[in-house]
Structure formats: C-alpha cells, structure tokens
C-alpha cells in the first residue's frame, strides 16, 4: 500500500488544484453512489475498517461518539443571566476515505448542544483535509490541504508553543480544546529530522461563553465587534514552520509563527444598550522551543516562547518571553498492584508578571496521574495550579473509566479557591463546577 502512495495519480493532483470543496463533494458522491457504507459496516464492523467492494476506495472507515454531560455549579452566579445546571449533548464523528493510489480524505465534524448557553451550542469542522504522501530517496513528504488540527508541545499544563489552532474556549476553560484551522501543511521527514511548513489563509476567532454561560467576564465578548491589526483582517495569510528531531533520549522542536494572534486583546466597547468586549487580534511573531528528555521513569520537559506584537494587560505592546519547565516521574506497579502513579510538576513563568494576559504568569502546576491498568482503563488525574506571587489556586480532579466496550464515564471537577482580585480568573471565582458525562463510542 505505502509504495503505491509514491505516484499521485493525475486525478488527485487535478482535484487538489481545484480545491478541497470539489474534492470532498466528489469523494462523498462516490461513496453514496457505490453505497458501500452499509455493506462495509456489516462486513468488517469489528475492525472499524474495510475495503468497500466496487468503490473507488481501498479503505473506508467511520467512527465517532455521542456524549451526554451535566455540569453543576454549586455557587450562585456572579454575573446576571448565568445558569447553574447546564447539560450538553455532543456528537463527534470521523470519516476516512483512502483511494487505491494512497491519497486520502478525512472529515471530522463536531457538534455540541448546550441547554443553557446558546454560544456553547456550536458546531465545528475539526478536520476536512486531503492527505498526499510520497518519497524522495530515504525521505518522505506529506501534504495536507484543508481544515486540520496540529498539536505542538510536550508539557501538560500550558502548551505555549502550540499556536496553529484557535482555542475553543466554550468547550473547556483549560484552553486545550481547539477549533479546526484552514491550512496547507507540508511535512518533509528525513533521517536528519522533520521540517514542517504551514500556510493558514483564514483566521478563526476564539469562542467565548454567552450571557447564560459561566466561566466568563462580567461583560460579553462580541465577535461581531472584532478588529484586526492587519488590513487583510481575518484573511491575512499566517505562516508557521517547525523543525523537530529525536536524538537518543531527546525529542525537540524549534518553531516559528508569523501572523494573526490566536489570543485576542479584549477592549471594552459601547453597544446600544450595554457594554461588551471587542476582541482585537494583533499581528504577532513567535519563536518557540520545546524539548523532552526521556530517562527511565523520568520525563524532563521544557516549552519556551518569545513573542512580539502582543498587547499586555495594560493595552501596550510588549515583547515577552514565557516558559514552562517541569517533569514527571512514574512509579510503576506500586505496592505490588497494577497501579501506576505519575507525579507531575511544572513551573509556568511569563516575564510580564502582573501585566500578563494569561493565568500562567508565575504559577506552579502539581499533579498526580493514577493509572489503575484495569480492564476498564480507569484513570484519575488530580492537579493544582498555584500562584507563587499570590494565593490563587485552581484544583482539578478528572476521572475516566470505561463502563463497557462502548460506554465510558467521565467525571471532572474544577475548584477555584482564594482567587486574588488581580488574577485573570477573578471574575470566574464563583464558577467551581462538577461535571459528569457519559460517552458512547462507535
């Protein structure tokens, strides 16, 4: 299969040029025409993969999940209009189509319905890309065109170098949920390392909770009032590149980004009846470094960035450096049981200090991950983010457990304690919550 990928057939190249939309409509058309779906699912549903007979595809795969979540905020709301017991329905799916000649298309839509906050009710295309792969000597190239998600980084608390995708903040306050991003992504993997180059022609705005949503500022962020430093606005073409390599125990990456900031500066703006926050997206340049040393049961990690062009908390442009330095150590099969305990420590530092626009200005992240290694795959993650300059603390407990081969349970609680009025999280101080969710995977 893999060597077939070498030669892109003429059709694929032509389609690539005429754009993804056409490609998708054609390939999806193929599937419905061949009506390979049901056949395929029946033939090899167990493996989740199959070659649909009579179709143009070597492989067709369909998977996904449905989730039901309930959040409970024990404290009364701090801002007018907020609810306390939202529940949510989520749907995720992924379709993968691989052609006979090796190129493929992946489509992964996501949808959430939230009972209280219409802004949290949203859909996003996490992935919709065509992938082409080929060889040059002992190196390999890979081109992804379309909507995709790219993760860079090594630490657990705050992935500074991970800049390609916009944060889907309504999903989770931990800023780890990301929106799909339009891109052309070329990767060249050689024995001397991996080089990636990305061009991103369209900027996605960050999502923010609505009036009935918790975990927000007193004023709502109004995406319609968004302004850009660039005259091209959201159509500015952002570029990014990364070199990464593995040398023995060390995995490292050096990255650069030039384009529209993913993080907005929020400016109060007067609307007809109230005040809102208008996001302003600056043009920034970021250099990033990430590395991990894997030494036995020790993992030592570093992420560092230098960024220019951003506004600080006072609304002034200030270049800055920020880093996360830490590590984890695992105790395996503790007390002769199947339990593994991993202890995590990370120090998050932003040289802007109180002028920082993030919650990680000078904080220590401490955590423990308990993997029970049972049939249910039970995992418990307990962590705290503690300010070193003042007493603010964020506690988090997350439990994941499989209930059966298809159903799983997720319980999470985030407690915000003794938030300092200068802390960026101060306005969310009444928003500690407990969330219980069940997921059905197919």
């Amino acid at each position: 299969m893999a060597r077939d990928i070498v030669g892109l057939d003429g059709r694929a190249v032509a389609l690539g040029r005429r754009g993804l939309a056409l490609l998708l409509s054609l390939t999806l058309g193929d599937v419905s025409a061949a009506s390979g779906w049901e056949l395929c699912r029946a033939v090899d549903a167990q493996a989740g993969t199959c070659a649909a007979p009579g179709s143009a595809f070597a492989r067709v795969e369909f998977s996904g999940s449905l989730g039901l979540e309930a959040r409970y905020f024990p404290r009364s709301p701090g801002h007018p209009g907020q609810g306390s017991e939202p529940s949510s329905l989520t749907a995720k799916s992924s379709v993968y189509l691989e052609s006979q000649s090796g190129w493929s298309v992946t489509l992964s839509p996501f949808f959430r319905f939230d009972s209280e906050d219409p802004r949290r009710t949203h859909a996003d295309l996490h992935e919709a890309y065509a992938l082409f792969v080929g060889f040059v000597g002992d190196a390999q190239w890979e081109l992804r065109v379309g909507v995709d998600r790219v993760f860079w980084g090594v630490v657990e608390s705050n992935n500074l170098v991970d800049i390609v995708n916009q944060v889907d903040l309504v999903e989770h306050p931990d800023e780890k949920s990301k929106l799909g991003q339009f891109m052309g992504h070329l990767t060249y993997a050689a024995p001397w390392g991996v080089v990636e180059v990305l061009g991103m022609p369209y900027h996605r705005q960050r999502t923010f909770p609505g009036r009935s949503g918790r975990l927000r500022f007193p004023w709502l962020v109004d995406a319609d009032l968004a302004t850009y430093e660039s005259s091209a606005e959201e159509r500015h073409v952002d570029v990014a590149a990364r070199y990464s390599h593995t040398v023995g125990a060390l995995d490292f990456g050096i990255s650069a980004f030039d384009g529209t900031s993913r993080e907005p500066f929020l400016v109060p703006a007067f609307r007809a009846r109230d005040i809102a926050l208008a996001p302003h997206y600056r043009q920034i340049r970021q250099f990033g470094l990430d590395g991990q040393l894997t030494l036995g049961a020790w993992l030592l990690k570093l992420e560092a960035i230098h960024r220019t062009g951003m506004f600080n908390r006072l609304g002034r442009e200030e270049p800055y450096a920020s880093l996360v330095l830490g590590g984890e150590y695992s105790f395996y099969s503790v007390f002769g049981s199947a339990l593994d305990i991993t202890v995590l420590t990370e120090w998050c530092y932003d040289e802007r200090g109180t002028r920082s626009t993030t919650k990680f200005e000078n904080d220590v992240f401490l955590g423990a991950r308990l993997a029970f290694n049972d049939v249910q795959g039970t995992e418990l993650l307990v962590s705290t983010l503690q300010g070193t300059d003042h007493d603010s603390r964020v506690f988090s407990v997350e439990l994941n457990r499989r209930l059966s081969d298809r159903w799983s349970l997720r319980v999470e609680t985030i407690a915000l304690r003794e938030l300092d009025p200068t802390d960026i999280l101060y306005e969310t101080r009444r928003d500690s919550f407990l969330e219980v969710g069940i997921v059905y995977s197919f």
Partner: protein
Amino acid sequence: MTMNLARRPIAYGLAAFVPIAIALDTPASELAEAEQKGLDIALEARQKKVGFENFTASQVMVLRNKQGRESRRALRVKVMEVEADGDRSLFVFDEPRDVQGTAFLIHGHKDKADDQWLYLPALKRVKRISSANRSGSFMGSEFAYEDMSPPEVERFTYRYLRDEPCGELTCTVVERFPVDDKSGYSRQVVWQDTEELRLWKVEYFDRKNAHLKTLTVDGYQRYLDRYWQASNMNMVNHLTGKSTVLTWTDYQFQTDLVAMEFTQTGLRRVR
C-alpha cells in the same frame, strides 16, 4: 548471570561459529555448559526468524476475569525488522472504541531501553513515553508490556534444563533470566520443539519466584515457507484467576511497509 553487557557481542560471535562440541570441551562446570546450551538455543531460534523484513497482522484479545466476564480488544500490528537492532513495532487500536485510533510505536533496542511513543487521536498529540514500565499490564490484559514485543536474545541469560516430550513433538526446556531489573519476572521457563524451535509454553515466575502466569501457544502456520507464526496465545494468571486469549489473524509477510511509517510523522498518519 555470568555474562556482562560489554562481553556479550563477543560471546555471540563465538556462539555463532563454535560448534557445541568445542564448548563442551572447555573446562567449565556443568552450569556453564547448561548456560551455553540455553544461549545457543536462543540464538538458533533467532536465526530462524531473521530475514522476515516485515509483517502485518491483526490481533484480538479476549480478557476474562475470575467470574468469566469477558472484554474485547482489537488491534492491528505492524512489525519491521531492523538490521543489527531490535524490531520496530506499531500497534493501532480499533477496540475498545473509546481508544480507537490510538497508536503505540516501539523502537526496540538490543543494548539499551526501547524508545516508545504514543499517539492520542483526540488531541492529535504524539507523546514520547517512558519504556521503564516493563511489567505493567498491556491494555488491562494478562500480557505485560514486556510480553508484547518479541524477546531479544540479549535481554536474558539462559540455562538449558532438559528435553521432554510435548504432544507429538519433543521439546527442549530452557530457563531464561531477565537482565533488566525492571522486568516483573525473576525467571521464565520456555518450551520449544526441537525441530523448528517454535514456542509452545512459557511459565513466568514473579520477583518472589512464585509461579505467576503460564502462556500456552498453538495454531502454528508457516509463512513464506520459512516463518512459523502462532495463531493462539493463552495467558493464564494463576494468582488472580484471570486470563487473556490473544488470537492472531491476517498475517502478511514482506509487505510494502517502509521505515518512515515507524516514525512520529508516520504515527500521526495512522488510521
């Protein structure tokens, strides 16, 4: 335990060429003789596996607890032979469905700890993970991580015990001792038939030397007229009463797999 790391390559060089008869002539104790014979058998078994280049296969694991309740794991496996080093293996999970698409990459080494990476599809994140967890359970099954990758000859010292009938065949019984102190085992007793050195049974003894697990293997088939591969592996844990049946299907040898699939970039592409 008479071998040390530095001297081992020389020991192998000799073992490959020196007939056993000469080894017998050396003024060594019976113990040293048994050690040499055990090592020779391991080397001969390895020699029979050399040259497969690569293979792909599917695995289904059925985990059974003491009460008989079952749970299923389905995964696809790709293995690539690396000259003068350990094999590279890629595991892709299809079931349970909540971990579907998760992939596990191992760069095996003969003389140092393996390199391992995990791909988490929900975050599209590749994580380098510690390979120190040799004795932990693989996916909640009775197979430990160290049972999942093919045992490198260098990872053990050996002692030949005896030959005895096993079914219609004659088996040679060898005791092997893990070199790595992170292994969960103090020793393993291995039954291989004298004709093809196929593995039929392994008894695992934990660090307290208690009989922890027994692996029985059957359903051997020959591929490319040369390579014997088992279809069924049954691991029974005597301390907990749990068991795992691992069934291999869809073996394909010398496919068009390339080394680049066994990289972090390849891992991100796994479906």
